[in-house]
């Protein structure tokens, strides 16, 4: 068997050691990892850029829509304000007290032998009704009964006329010494002051109670 001498064993050993150098291997691993991480970063960056492009497209769309939306919102709030104000104004208009019909009803109640000398009518605040003070004179054989007729007729007229809580009361009723001639006949006179209060709104009819279901 031939003797084989390896005279380069030291160089070979050094070469092997260089190949097994942990720093070199580590650097190679680090570089490989760096490349992988870079690719991953690039992929992420690409995705982010596409998302940003999508965002800028939406921004452009929003910038087109925004003025319209702002104008629509402004108009909506304006319209809501108009609707509410009109509603309140309509309510105010509908809840006014109309003096014309009242004066007409009062005129119907005044017989030829009664006379009104003054009328003071006030619409009470917060829908508390209407208060009227009527002063006048009545001439008849029984002047007090003439004044009472006026009081009763006024009460009936106002109740039938759609007003509720009608109260017609004498504040004063005094005989006068004066004698007047009505239709050629001498009549005694009485002075009266009537206090009238009523609610212009008609009394609401009570809602019928719901029928109870019969038990079986």
């Amino acid at each position, binding site marked *: 068997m031939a003797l084989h001498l390896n005279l380069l064993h030291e160089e070979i050993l050094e070469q092997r050691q260089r190949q097994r*150098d*942990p*720093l070199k*291997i*580590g650097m190679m*691993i*680090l570089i490989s*990892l*760096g490349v992988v*991480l870079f690719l*991953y*970063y690039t992929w*992420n*960056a690409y*995705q*982010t850029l596409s*998302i*940003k492009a*999508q*965002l800028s497209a*939406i*921004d452009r*769309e*929003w910038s087109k*829509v*925004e003025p*319209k*939306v702002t104008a*629509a*919102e402004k*108009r*909506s709030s304006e*319209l*809501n304000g*108009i*609707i*509410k*104000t*009109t*509603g309140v*104004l*309509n309510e*105010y*208009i509908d809840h*006014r*007290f*109309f*003096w*014309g*019909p009242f*004066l007409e009803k009062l*005129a119907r109640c005044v017989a030829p032998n009664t*006379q*009104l*000398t*003054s*009328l003071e*009518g*006030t*619409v009470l605040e917060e829908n508390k009704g209407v208060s009227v003070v009527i002063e006048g004179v009545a001439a008849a054989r029984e002047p007090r009964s003439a004044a009472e007729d006026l009081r009763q007729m006024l009460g009936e007229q106002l109740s039938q006329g759609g007003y509720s809580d009608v109260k017609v009361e004498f504040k004063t009723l005094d005989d006068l010494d004066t004698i007047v001639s009505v239709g050629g006949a001498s009549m005694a006179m009485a002075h009266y002051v009537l206090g009238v209060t009523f609610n212009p709104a008609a009394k609401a009819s009570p809602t019928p109670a719901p029928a109870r279901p019969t038990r079986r």
Partner: protein
Amino acid sequence: MNKLGLKKDQIQKVGLTLVGFVILLYIYFSFFLGPLNHSRSAALAAINEKQSKLASSKNNLAKAANLEQQAKAATARFAALKSLNSEGAPIAWFPPRMKVFFANQQIDKAVARLESSAVFKQPELSAWLKFNWVIDLPQADYATLGTAISQLENAEPLLAVTKVSIHASPDQPEFQQVVLMATNTIPKQ
């Protein structure tokens, strides 16, 4: 030498490599991937926000169009009520208007004067004012007065007569002395 057969200098190199690895990861996540992810999340959140805004804005536009249709009657009524009042200070146009109105109703010598003005309690009427007027009618016939008041109440829906005072005229029994107190609702100038 250790179990893996590494020499001391090799162990140092492995340690150095590990340190480099940690530094690489730290730099990568802190200065590259972290900000990128943060930026992407912010963009996604902004997209969601804008999309929801766009969706709601489309709803709002549709609602506004519907409201415009529904509010036609109210808008017309509002414009009609506003047009009942003339431009300018009410004290300049209301007394002459009352004078002309009552003159047309055969009641002469009508004098209207401003008693007070006030704001409304209701927030809906914050742009309106109420003016309280005293209208003197020193010579009026009862029947004519009744007709005139009815006409006034119908012609001026924003005017409410709050007080009526009628007294027989001592000198002219066929006439009455009348004082009306009326509240008129007028938009703020």
